[in-house]
């Protein structure tokens, strides 16, 4: 019964807010917002927008960040996947990357800033241990005008995402047999993988790649921490206009939000055109029949970039941990001169409040997403629909591809109009839009992999559909259910824009606090919140792994691998 309208509701939650939000900015972009006393259509907001000094630079740097972060992440993933196929190192990389996926973008950005800034860990090590400069060099690394540090932070985060997407696509790409065939025809490992495997994997990860591109173009939180401010990127500029007491700027912000949608659409069109060109060139290359392609150097390059990646990740985590327990840490000392737990104890009341908010919002959103997902999938099962790839799979990517700043601004306008802004329900709802796709993606494959005969047997024994679900399949799927829940929680914890735009300052979370502190503040306190941001999702994933083991400790057949 309930399951029957779950798919419709799921779709409504996925795309409803996006389209409502987009409609919410479209009208003010053309001067129509009766709530602000303007009900005549005009092009004034656009004129104001295009006369903003530095707009071209803002747009250019946003585009550069979007394409740069996507290209670098994709190139990294191709290189490592091609060079590492079937090696033991590959499994190791996989295990190391997975936890990074759970770390919120903001924590990664802050950690990176602590490492690469002129007074950061790298220069401290250089100055303190290796005889480098004794005062920090006056060079622009963080907040650089080209957004290079934003690209670096995004790449750190998007690489694990794309990598895991590639791994998820492998079973359907028939990798082992393709490779065997290619190798038997004399192709090297790298050339064989690129020619026989990659095209089929790419076809499956196109949507995630586009999501990465759109995310990089529209990112706000990372750009607030690491991005340029003379002028800022377009999405950050929009946020500044929204927070300005001069309400006429909201019209301009709405126009800019529409422009942002246009930018994302154009960027996607350009990417698809590039795909076509690359596809044609790739086909010629494949048909050329060359058997070997950088067979020796690709693995070396893959090791180098993986090492670089690992070093950056370890340094960032180290810097955050050290700063969170540092008392005095003068430049150029590579380590703090004295340690204290005071940073943690002094912040603990505030931190407890923020962690509670994060968990309340995150768990509520994740549980709702989970229930909706399970009901949708159950509906599919009961109706005997066994489409490979759910009918609405593309829809899952709508909230991930549409620029957040654009539709969240519209949602903000709508929520003020409805009088629900700053309410718990509205915040959870805004988070749900982003949590739902990940929960669905995470649980749909294991769900569909369950042997349908379990259900048939259960029904044959005379139990109801609901009981068949609750007593057979759900327990079997407990590990998948729990990791989907953990992922949903992690996604919610990382949300910045959805929290500040809908909740204002009323529902502060560890992520909003980290962003506020990161744009100016005591490193020791910033570190406390960044470490908390890293820890919460880790704990959630660890619990998701541990709980089924505990629950099934007396069921040999349900062993968790």
């Amino acid at each position, binding site marked *: 019964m309930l399951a*029957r*309208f779950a798919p*419709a*509701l799921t779709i*409504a939650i996925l795309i409803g807010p996006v389209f409502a939000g987009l409609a919410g900015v479209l009208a003010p972009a053309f001067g129509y917002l009766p*709530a*602000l006393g303007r009900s005549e259509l005009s092009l004034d907001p656009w004129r104001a927008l295009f006369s903003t*000094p*530095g707009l071209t*630079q803002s747009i250019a740097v946003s585009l550069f960040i979007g394409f740069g972060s996507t290209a670098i992440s994709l190139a990294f993933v191709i290189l490592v996947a091609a060079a590492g196929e079937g090696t033991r190192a590959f499994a190791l990389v996989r295990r190391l990357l997975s936890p990074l996926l759970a770390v919120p973008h903001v924590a990664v950005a802050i950690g990176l800033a602590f490492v690469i800034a*002129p*007074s950061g860990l790298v220069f401290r090590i250089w100055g303190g241990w290796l005889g480098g400069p004794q*005062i*920090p060099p*006056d*060079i*622009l690394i*963080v*907040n*650089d*005008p080209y957004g290079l540090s934003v690209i670096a932070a995004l790449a750190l985060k998007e690489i694990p995402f794309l990598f895991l997407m590639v791994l998820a696509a492998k079973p359907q790409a028939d990798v082992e047999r393709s490779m065997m065939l290619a190798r038997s025809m004399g192709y090297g490992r790298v050339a064989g993988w690129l020619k026989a495997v990659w095209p089929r994997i790419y076809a499956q990860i196109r949507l995630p790649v586009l999501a990465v591109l759109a995310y990089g173009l529209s990112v706000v939180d990372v750009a607030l921490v690491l991005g*340029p*401010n*003379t*002028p800022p990127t377009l999405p950050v500029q929009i946020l500044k206009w*929204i*927070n*300005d*007491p001069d*309400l006429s700027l909201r019209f301009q912000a709405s126009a800019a939000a529409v422009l942002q949608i246009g930018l994302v659409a154009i960027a996607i069109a350009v990417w698809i055109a590039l795909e076509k060109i690359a596809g044609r060139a790739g086909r010629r290359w494949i048909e050329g029949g060359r058997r070997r392609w950088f067979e020796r150097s690709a693995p070396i390059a893959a090791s180098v970039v993986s090492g670089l990646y690992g070093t950056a990740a370890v340094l960032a985590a180290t810097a955050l941990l050290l700063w969170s327990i540092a*008392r*005095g840490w*003068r*430049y*150029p000392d590579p380590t703090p001169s*004295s340690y204290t737990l005071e940073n943690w104890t002094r912040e603990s009341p505030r931190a407890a409040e923020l962690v509670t908010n994060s968990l309340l919002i995150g768990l509520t959103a994740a549980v709702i997403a989970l229930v909706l997902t399970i009901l949708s999938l159950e509906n599919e099962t009961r109706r005997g629909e066994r489409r490979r790839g759910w009918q609405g799979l593309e829809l899952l990517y709508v909230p991930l591809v549409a620029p957040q700043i654009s539709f969240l601004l519209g949602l903000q306008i709508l929520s*003020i*109009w*409805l*009088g*629900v*802004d*700053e*309410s*718990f*329900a*509205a915040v959870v*709802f805004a988070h749900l839009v982003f949590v739902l796709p990940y929960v669905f993606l995470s649980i749909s494959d294991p769900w569909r992999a369950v042997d349908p005969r379990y259900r048939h047997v259960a029904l044959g024994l005379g139990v109801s559909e609901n009981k068949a679900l609750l007593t057979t399949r759900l327990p079997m799927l407990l590990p998948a259910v729990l990791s989907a829940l953990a992922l949903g929680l992690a996604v919610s914890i990382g949300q910045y824009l959805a929290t500040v735009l809908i909740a*204002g*300052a*009323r529902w*502060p979370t560890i992520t909003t*606090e980290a962003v*506020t502190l990161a*744009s*100016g*503040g*005591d*490193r020791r*306190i910033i570190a406390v919140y960044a470490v908390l941001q890293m820890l919460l999702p880790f704990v959630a994933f660890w619990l998701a792994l541990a709980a089924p083991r505990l629950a099934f400790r007396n069921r040999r057949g349900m062993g968790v691998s």
Partner: protein
Amino acid sequence: MTAMRRFRLAGAIVAALVWAGGLNAAADVSPEPKNWSEVEAAAQGQTVYWYAWAGERLINDHIAWVGEQVQARYGVTLEHVKISATSEAVSKVVAEKAAGRDDDGAVDLIWINGPNFAAMKENDLLFGPWAEDLPNFALVDVENKPAVLNDFTIPTDGLEAPWNMAQIVFYYDSARVPEPPRTAQALLEWAQANPGRFAFPTPEDFLGATFLKQVLVELAPDQSRLQEEASDFDFDEITAPLWAYLDVLTPNLWRKGQAYPANSSELRRLLGDGEIDIGLAFNPAEASAAIAKDEIPDTVRTLVFEGGTIGNASFIAIPYNAAHKAGAMVVANFLMSPEAQLDKQRPDGFGGFTVLAMDKLSPEDRAAFEAQPRGVATLSPEELGAHLPEPHPSWMTRVGKAWKERYGLR
């Protein structure tokens, strides 16, 4: 699955959201501050949402302490809504007014001054007058601190209550700068000789904007002109010396002016990290507190320019649609009490200077203020001297805009 049912479900969701949003309503009728015991009675049990800039941990700690006190004394729960710029709170009230939310507004109290106050006053977004009817207002030093009645030249008219005095001080690491510059001109020469070692926050931040005003006031041919509203007629002429100054200074700033610290705490961190040698603060006691926390070297000292530095008062105001006006007034009155002012001025705390007149206090309270030690890097009131008055708020707005066009895009 009929379309009707789908529709009804959507309706139920919207209804639930509206209901959840309405939970924190329960607005009070406008209380009359002249009848103080009534205000205190109405405040009992209210939750006051104070939107206050939260960029400084020690100030946040003081606000938390105030929250404990008003809870214990008046049964008022104080929620510090932490914002990174006051304009966020103003923007909220403006949006609420536009949406027709004329009672039960989200904001009960705002830490405010300058252009934000001018804008709210001009657009009738403030409740009041109420401030001068508060019992503790009688203790405020209206005679010797004219800034408590004139916020950037705009008369407060009882629409906001003063709670803190601030004045620009420059801080420097005396171990690296034995002979610090003591005028704007000397600072420029020092920066040319030591490129990259001085910084001020982005003028989007109030401290950065105040640095521009400091230079503007110090170099302006006629300071009295700045007390009146800016106009196109002579804006270029009055600000010409400022731009000439910045044209030379900017390439000698930290990062050659291609990036600016976000606010006072980031600026201080730059000194702590050894990235700069000279910075500035709007709180004369800030450097001492930072030394005590091991944030910056203990060799840091502060100074004011020979011609004086800009100072002002910080205020608290109540929006016209605040849901908990009685509670907000009780909090404001407590903030002006000798006890709260004394805690605020603690050298190991916020360190913010008092708005009260010593000769209006009881002998015990006066003795407590006099006995309070000063931080190692904090100047005495005599050394600070009389502060320069803030220009009319229109100068801050226009100078900020003009700065952005000239130097804000690189």
